[in-house]
């Protein structure tokens, strides 16, 4: 019994849990399409990494490794920053396309890209531009 307890020390248990969370997040990232869910999946993967790191820090005797903990702290702040930016991008994308998923398939090569140096402000050109490609591709056919 004590052998089992020894084996299941936090220094081993938590890294294992972290690895499972990492794999789980990866699975979700592949499977789900909604961008918010994908961002959640990435966050869960990140938590998995932090759990491995803190689990490693807690291995062995003595106090936990402060460097590992500091790295985790840094990692969490980086993760929240990236998440915030990603969410802002999702909102922007939804505003432009009405969707919060990236449509699968190859990118539309003929979609016009316009040139910011010609625009006074983004807002004025987005709507017509979004309509244009379908009209043109119809022509070609």
């Amino acid at each position: 019994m004590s052998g089992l307890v020894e084996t299941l020390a936090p220094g081993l248990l938590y890294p294992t849990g972290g690895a499972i969370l990492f794999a789980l997040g990866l699975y979700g990232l592949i499977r789900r399409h909604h961008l918010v869910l994908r961002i959640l999946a990435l966050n869960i993967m990140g938590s998995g990494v932090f759990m491995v790191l803190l689990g490693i820090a807690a291995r062995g005797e003595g106090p936990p490794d402060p460097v590992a903990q500091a790295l985790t702290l840094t990692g969490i702040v980086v993760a929240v920053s990236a998440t915030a930016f990603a969410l802002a991008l999702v909102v922007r994308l939804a505003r432009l396309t009405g969707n919060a998923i990236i449509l699968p398939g190859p990118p539309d090569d003929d979609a016009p890209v316009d040139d910011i140096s010609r625009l006074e402000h983004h807002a004025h050109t987005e709507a017509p531009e979004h309509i244009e490609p379908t009209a043109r591709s119809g022509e070609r056919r």
Partner: protein
Amino acid sequence: MNLLLVVFDLALLAGLIGVAWRCLASTDLFRAVVLFITFGLLLALAWVRLEAPDIALAEAAIGAGITGALLLVTLERLRVIIAGRRSDRPDTVPPDPSGPGAALQALHDPPPEPRTRLPALTFALVVGSLLVTTLWHQPDAAGLEPVVDAHMDASGVDHPITAVLLNFRAYDTFLELAIVLVALLGAWSLGRHDRIPARPAPGPILPGTLRLLVPVAVVTGVYVLWAGSHQPGGAFQAGAILGAAGILLVLSRPRRMPPPPGTLLRLGLGAGVGLFLASGVYGLLAGHGFLGYPPGWDYPLIILIEVAATLSIALTLVALFIAGRPEGDDRP
């Protein structure tokens, strides 16, 4: 090492994995976000168990709190956009009505198609099992704890994590502040901010609570910041707490946000990195190495940087919650 703790660990991990699974499997996004916040709180518990109270504090405040708020406000924004209720933005394109369930995709994600299940599952299983095998092979390395311990007296602070963050690996921490700022610059570059899609709460309860909560949060934040030099706490946790207070404030009066003056706002956002960098460059010029402190000045400088960083982080987090750049920033 007793059995009870092992059972606790197993239960906690099972809970974490279960919640994460439910979160990623849910078709309702709101539900997924709530589960994710739960996941964050459980994680904080796990960090406590791993003797990492600093991280637990940060996880609760940042991982669960701020991230949760960001996710919820995003869902609300998406709902508003897709429902097409907002007409004050000329660039809103109505969803393609012929698209596959376009209107629903805002807050719902249909269950994934079965044909990707097997390859995805196989891939994830292979990665996971390889990781687990690798981790089980690793020795109980002592890590850097002894090295840090040996240099604590030269660090200027008493708390090892703060010593690592603000002295031994100050460069990382500087860049971490920079990333928070860069994320905001990125969000701002996407366009001006719109109104927070919050419905004014009826009744006196919210304003009353806020009147009580915000001062408490400020006091807590300042305490956490000060405590950081000798016990768990520090600039990031404090910044997150203050930021949370700011978010509450923003939420409580969504329509009556005074536009902040552009220059002052920019200065406030850049104060953390600015001061950090200034101190670092001084260290370089004075011969203590880039981001080094002059002997004897380490404690006051660290505290000064932490104060500025707390302020900047709090401001940045609130700004990230608002997302777009304020009008004042575009004035000539």
